[in-house]
């Protein structure tokens, strides 16, 4: 993670290896967080779309159910300033989790 504190928050969705992942994560945010889809923009904050800490827990549960990955609350997730950073944090945590699984399998 770069010093995101110094840079302004991103205004576009993160550039992920698997571009379909963003839509799948957004689907889960919509469903688990009970948010209208058109309110989900990269610049929206968790507060403005009404997501509280319990909703974030529910979203992480949805990720586990639909993507078969356990994600704990980490610093990057907790400090996401908008949905772009939130989605990026989920994608990063998923990647770490996959890497750990592969290491375990070896």
């Amino acid at each position, binding site marked *: 993670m770069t010093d995101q504190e110094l840079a302004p928050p991103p205004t576009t969705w993160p550039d992920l290896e698997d571009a379909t992942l963003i839509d799948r994560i957004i689907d889960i945010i919509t469903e688990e967080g009970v948010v209208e889809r058109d309110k989900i923009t990269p610049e929206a904050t968790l507060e403005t779309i009404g997501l509280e800490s319990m909703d974030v827990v529910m979203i992480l549960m949805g990720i586990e159910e639909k993507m078969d990955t356990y994600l704990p609350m980490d*610093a990057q997730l907790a400090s996401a300033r908008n949905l772009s950073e939130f989605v990026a944090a989920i994608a990063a945590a998923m990647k770490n989790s996959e890497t750990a699984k592969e290491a375990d399998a070896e």
Partner: protein
Amino acid sequence: MIRIGITGMGAVSAAGIGVSALWQAARDGNSAVSALNIPRGEALRVRVAAALHDFDAAEHLTDQELKRTDRFSHFAHVAVNEALQQAGISADTLKGSRTSAIIGTGIGGMNTLDDSYHDFYQGKTRVHALSIPRIMPSSATSHVSITHQITGPSFCVTSACSSASQSIGIGAQLIRSGIVDRAIVGGSEACITPASMKAWEMMRVLSPDSSRPFSKDRNGMILGEGAGAFLLESEAAMAARGATPIAWLAGYGTSSDARDIIQPDVDGAAAAMQAALDDAGLSAGDIDYINAHGTGTVLNDINEAAAIRKIFGDLTDNIPVSSSKPVIGHTLGASGALELVITTMAMREGCIPPHINVTEPDPKCALNLPLNGAISRPIAAALSNSFAFGGINASLIVTAVR
């Protein structure tokens, strides 16, 4: 003011049975966290814990005792016996109405609960006949009271992760008030069951890999189990039997956030530390070492660091702080006792235990963490913190015997 001496300590943790095993692991920074494979645990995502894999209760308790006790009582039994042995107190002096027994726990007999529910919902109509006395949170206390014929006030303090610290503190207050002369105090927890692990997973506060308190990449805590116990005695009670303390329990402070059931609060945590300092008649500059609650969750660590800075100000940069949870996991209702054992040993040995597992210190929780191994240094007074879900905070201060 009646001074309270600690005359004996006992510990059961993933590091092994005994204070010595616990202290060695803490001093050497050897984590007792390991892979977890428990029956019926197939659905678990998190497969690491600080568990006692080889603990055989039958080595410590009779068949009759085993029937009526849960694993958390077994841990308490062993830890209490060690504390009493170190104290060198006779059974006759200990028994009776001038002694109190207070063993805290976050949950109680979770292994019995989990097994009983499993059996019941599987259609087994005959569950364990003594499920209730095994599960009740006060059963470890009652077991200790029965075993040692303690007829003074006995009860269980349950306040989640502050249970043990509050048990120790309230035991000291009972002695100070003159209600009893001595108290067996501490905490015990045995919560590493499949359903309990799953419930913790759901909170998203369990790390799937390791506990890294105050590290930028921390992602949660590791569950642990065990028990810590102390014999506390008044100065007069010690003098009457010719005993000397291994340390003074000098201060106890407790507070409630009165805010959120999960999120911690800087003011509440700071208030507990300040109250402990006031109780001990010490100022922030007198504290040589802080054993942090340090869970490795995002929220606790930021909150605790801010609370420490609120009380200790610029001194924060000089006072070494370490957490024992990367070593023995978060033992919930036992944590305050096990960590006070480590804090007291650190003081007795003049050795500050290292803070392990940090990949990169989080600037949001700037503390003086001994990251490069233990530090030899005299400790005259040390503080141990426990902060619980529900906003219940407790801090204890031990001081050296000169």
